């Protein structure tokens, strides 16, 4: 126990020393005659800090460790505050205040739009929500919650139906025989070109059967037996092929992200590549 504590202390010292040296070297590297010394020191610090945090997160891949814990907790705190400030400045000051109070608007330097009584409502609802902090009157906050849940449920019910559901249903109406001019023409013009009749017709059939069997798979009140059994099996096959394909396709994007991160380390921090 005492040993492992000593080892982690040594590691800590080594890490601190390493990043201090890196800071100094970076500072020397970016400093030239024209730049102010303090700016070089500061910029070098920020680059080194970002590199340290990057490596601290990567160290999580080995195992959970104090450096990851440090980065994680710092990240949580800073980001929560960041969004709090953004919300306050852009929404409360930028959006609500100009509709409520002239004097406060001018204090914060936002153009006053005229008093609008409708902006009292969210203020009241917001205060109702804050009543949660009181143990006695906490139930009042449910009024605000009820408004939020009701509105969003109604809002999304129809909007989702329109944007996704109906457009997907209507797009399923595809001709199962593309440019059909009889079997003779079909055979003579047979080609594997992606815009050819054969591939288009085949694709439309796959789409039709895929959607059909996929929907059968999602039937809850029918036992998957007989016809339903076969159809739902085809459905889950199509789903699995799709999942595999999407997975394989995503690898590229994820590798690009890692390339971006390592480029930062190798180029911006260590200067190994140009």
């Amino acid at each position, binding site marked *: 126990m005492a040993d492992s504590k000593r080892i982690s202390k040594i590691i800590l010292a080594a890490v601190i020393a390493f990043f201090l040296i890196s800071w100094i070297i970076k500072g020397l590297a970016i400093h030239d005659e024209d730049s102010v010394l303090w700016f070089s020191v500061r910029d070098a610090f920020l680059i080194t800090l970002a590199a340290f945090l990057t490596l601290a*997160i990567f160290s*999580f891949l080995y195992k*959970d460790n104090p450096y*990851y814990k440090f*980065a*994680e*907790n710092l*990240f*949580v*705190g*800073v*980001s*929560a505050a*960041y*969004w709090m400030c953004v919300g306050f400045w852009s929404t409360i000051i930028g959006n609500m205040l100009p509709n409520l109070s002239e004097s406060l608007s001018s204090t914060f330097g936002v153009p006053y739009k005229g008093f609008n009584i409708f902006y009292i409502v969210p203020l009241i609802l917001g205060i109702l929500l804050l009543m*949660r902090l009181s143990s006695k009157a906490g139930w009042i*906050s*449910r009024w605000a*919650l009820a408004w*939020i*849940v009701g509105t*969003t*449920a109604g809002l*999304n*019910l*129809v909007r*989702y*139906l*329109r944007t996704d*559901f*109906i*457009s997907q*249903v*209507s797009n*399923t*109406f*595809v*001709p*199962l*025989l593309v440019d059909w001019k009889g079997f003779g023409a079909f055979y003579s013009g047979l080609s594997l070109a992606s815009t050819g009749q054969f591939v288009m017709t085949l694709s439309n059939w796959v789409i*039709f059967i895929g*959607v*059909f069997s996929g*929907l*059968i798979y*999602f*039937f*809850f*009140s*029918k*036992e*998957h037996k007989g016809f339903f059994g076969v159809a739902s099996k085809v459905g889950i096959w199509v*789903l*699995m092929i*799709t*999942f*595999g394909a*999407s*997975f394989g396709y*995503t690898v590229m994007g994820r590798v690009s992200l890692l390339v971006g991160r390592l480029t930062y380390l190798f180029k911006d921090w260590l200067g190994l590549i140009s």
Partner: protein
Amino acid sequence: MKLKIVVVLTMLFMGVWAMASAQESLETIAAPDSIQAAPLPEPAKELSAKDAPDDHGHAIDVTWAKSPDDGERLKNVIGYIVYRAANPDGPFEARSGLLLGTTSYTDAGALNEGENDFMPDYQDYYYRVRAMTQDSTVFADSDIFGPVQSYGQWYDKGKTAVLLLVAGFLFLTIFFISKARGGAELYVRRLAGIEAVDEAIGRATEMGKPILYVLGLGTAADIATIASYTILGRVAKKVAEYQTGLIVPCYDPIVMTVAQETVRTAYLDAGRPDAFNQDMVYFVTNQQFAYVAGVNGVMLRERPATNLYMGKFYAESLILAETGVVAGSIQISGTDEISQIPFFVVACDYTLIGEELYAASAYLGKEPLLLGSLKAQDYAKAGVIILAVIGFISLMLGYHDFVDFFHVTG
């Protein structure tokens, strides 16, 4: 005098030459170098204008028939410009750019007074369409049409398909729920992912370890999150009965508030209000990856026996699920976010795919009322399949009205 004659003669000559060349081919006319004065084209015909349907007002649809010289005869009309005035005598101002290959235009203005281009409702407007040639000084104006007024509608006819669907589905749901209330037995097939939830809670109790419930990155506005609350309610009730621990880190503060209320209710239902602690459900941060970092920390340090991911998830899904594997937890996930389902399928023990997430709350509750709505969903799916078959047949027969009905506008 002589000069005048020369000019007139030249112009005459050019006019004749231009006319002759105009009839040769479209290419010569379309050529950019042809700057000769073209002969006057015929104006557009049958101009008409009416309030744009199914909208918020402040817009007028203008239609006209092609000028006879558009594509035929002189072939010198290349497009049209729509003009509008408040009086039949003018002044007319251009309301469109040069419109190509179309004979209709929606003249829309701003909605509110004081904005640029404000177009008040219930006011008379007069329209005129100008047929343009390659040479912007050679054009022909149509007759004036008017007066016409714009106004807003109270029902959008383009959304009838949605209305019918909502009404039909509402009817189905109420019908099956009242049937279920009447005591009818409704069969529901088993869903492995949901049966696993009960087992997983039992396992956590045996191991004396907590359960981690992640509501995802959805905001209070996502219906997937609403579905997740109800699952959380059922899980929390069981957890309270078994006296296992529960950890619910939240991404959205409103979701956190609702989740706290949900868990409190569940503990009350289980008869253990004393065991409820508000801090079981807490806020982490509403930044995607900071939230993930925090939840990862919880997984590796508290070592929950079971991780449940229910709701909306984005790129973080795989980070969460893989860390859960490292921590050795049983993992059950459910999301309607299609792009993330593959990662959950690959990394979790059980995954509720899409609609199964919405069915889960009904399953866990086993309440007839909720099962009734599942039955309604099934009938609606059967309806979609039938519609698709009808659509396919009607396309075969060349009858497009049926398909067009489902192309919702607006």
